[in-house]
């Protein structure tokens, strides 16, 4: 494991400069380096042989978590450890902390970023599925200065694939403010905090009587990558988070998904994980929406 020759290393201070450098090389030959916790593996194994590395560490506009009345904005370079330390995350987005807190290990959390994780979109990952259930908006900037916003549902295409153009940088992820809303994420891996064999994220919004008016459920660890589970979402809507209904929703999801068998778990085990994790995560999301924790 050692990188092939790299010709150029740059450390721009603005996003405009970063996309400019990208444009000087044919597609894929210049790459962004965020926390490096995925891409360095690819570079060292020579799965990727970039000619130019564009290090994003000095771009201050990509950093910081801003919470205000409209919602929250996380810069693409916000690290897992920054999310864990953010005391003011509203319950609607508590799943971000659930996920970030258990990524890998301390050293990985000190480096890895939410933007890097979403742009890499590895199938066994935590943040893409979490951002998906939370309904984030991805903010992109193109080399010609064009800015666009994209729903996370459209951004995440499949394992290691996103709708980000070769000439684009992810600048931030936005989440709209939401009242009486709670979310939660949990994964199961072979070791504590290992990559998810299955991960489940749930977000629910309640009306004044505590009935669910909107639900988003996502799964990670499945071969098709981070995905929503619309069948189960419909079951949760109208409920007050009764255990029986939550179990019904996740039994249906486990039945409907294409859960692969591999060296980590067989299909039946993955389905069981979806049922078990789903019950815990949905119960916690309802509790948070009610303001319980």
């Amino acid at each position, binding site marked *: 494991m050692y990188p092939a020759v*790299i*010709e150029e290393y740059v450390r721009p201070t603005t996003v405009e400069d970063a996309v400019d450098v990208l444009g000087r090389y044919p597609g894929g030959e210049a790459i962004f380096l965020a926390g490096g916790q995925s891409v360095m593996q690819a570079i060292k194994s020579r799965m990727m042989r970039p000619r130019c590395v564009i*290090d994003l560490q000095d771009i201050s506009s990509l950093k910081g978590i801003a919470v205000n009345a409209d919602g929250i904005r996380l810069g693409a370079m916000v690290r897992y450890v920054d999310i864990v330390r953010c005391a003011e995350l509203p319950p609607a987005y508590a799943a971000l902390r659930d996920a970030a807190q258990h990524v890998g290990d301390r*050293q*990985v959390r*000190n480096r890895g970023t939410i933007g890097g994780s979403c742009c890499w979109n590895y199938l066994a990952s935590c943040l893409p599925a979490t951002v998906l259930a939370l309904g984030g908006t991805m903010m992109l900037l193109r080399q010609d200065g064009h800015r666009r916003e994209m729903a996370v549902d459209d951004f995440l295409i499949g394992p290691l694939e996103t709708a980000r153009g070769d000439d684009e940088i992810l600048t931030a992820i936005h989440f709209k403010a939401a009242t009486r809303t709670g979310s939660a994420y949990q994964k199961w891996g072979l070791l*504590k905090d290992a990559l998810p064999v299955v991960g489940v994220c749930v977000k629910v919004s309640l009306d004044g009587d505590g009935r669910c008016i909107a639900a988003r459920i996502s799964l990670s660890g499945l071969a098709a990558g981070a995905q929503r589970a619309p069948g189960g979402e419909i079951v949760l809507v109208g409920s007050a988070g009764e255990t029986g209904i939550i179990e019904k929703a996740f039994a249906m999801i486990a039945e409907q998904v294409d859960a692969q068998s591999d060296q980590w778990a067989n299909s039946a085990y993955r389905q069981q994980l979806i049922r078990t994790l789903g019950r815990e995560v949905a119960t916690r999301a309802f509790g948070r929406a009610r303001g319980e924790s």
Partner: protein
Amino acid sequence: MKTIQVTINGELYQETVPIRMLLVDFIRERCGLTGTHVACTYEGVCGACTVQLDGEAIKSCMLLAVQADGHRITTVEGLANGSDLTPLQTAFKAHHGLQCGFCTPGILMNMTEFLEKNPEPTDDEIRYGLIGNLCRCTGYVHIVDAVRAASKVAKQGGQDGG
């Protein structure tokens, strides 16, 4: 090639390095600080190469040396003040927190930051903090003992010293 300036354990190193050079190799081969180890052929999973970058534990095989340009690194050589060991180092010695010692520098660098952030951890928190460091000898029990002891020593030291 690129010329970089990195402060390691308070000393400034200026070197011209290939861009593809990993930080761990810069530390070991250019700066001669071989206390930082490589145990997993740079796969990023063993934690033996853990150093502190601006005070935070990171795996130095997961960075290019050029990324550390302008930054401050602390390696295991930077912990003790002459022959004055830190409370954590002393605790490792007292509690047999090491056998072959290959994993130890990485664990010290991680746990030193860990204790700064969480001076009175529970055993569960210590074990959770150690996930990124593999030890093939101790079974971790004595490592956990050492970290727990250092957390108390640090507290007493704080009281004694006012």
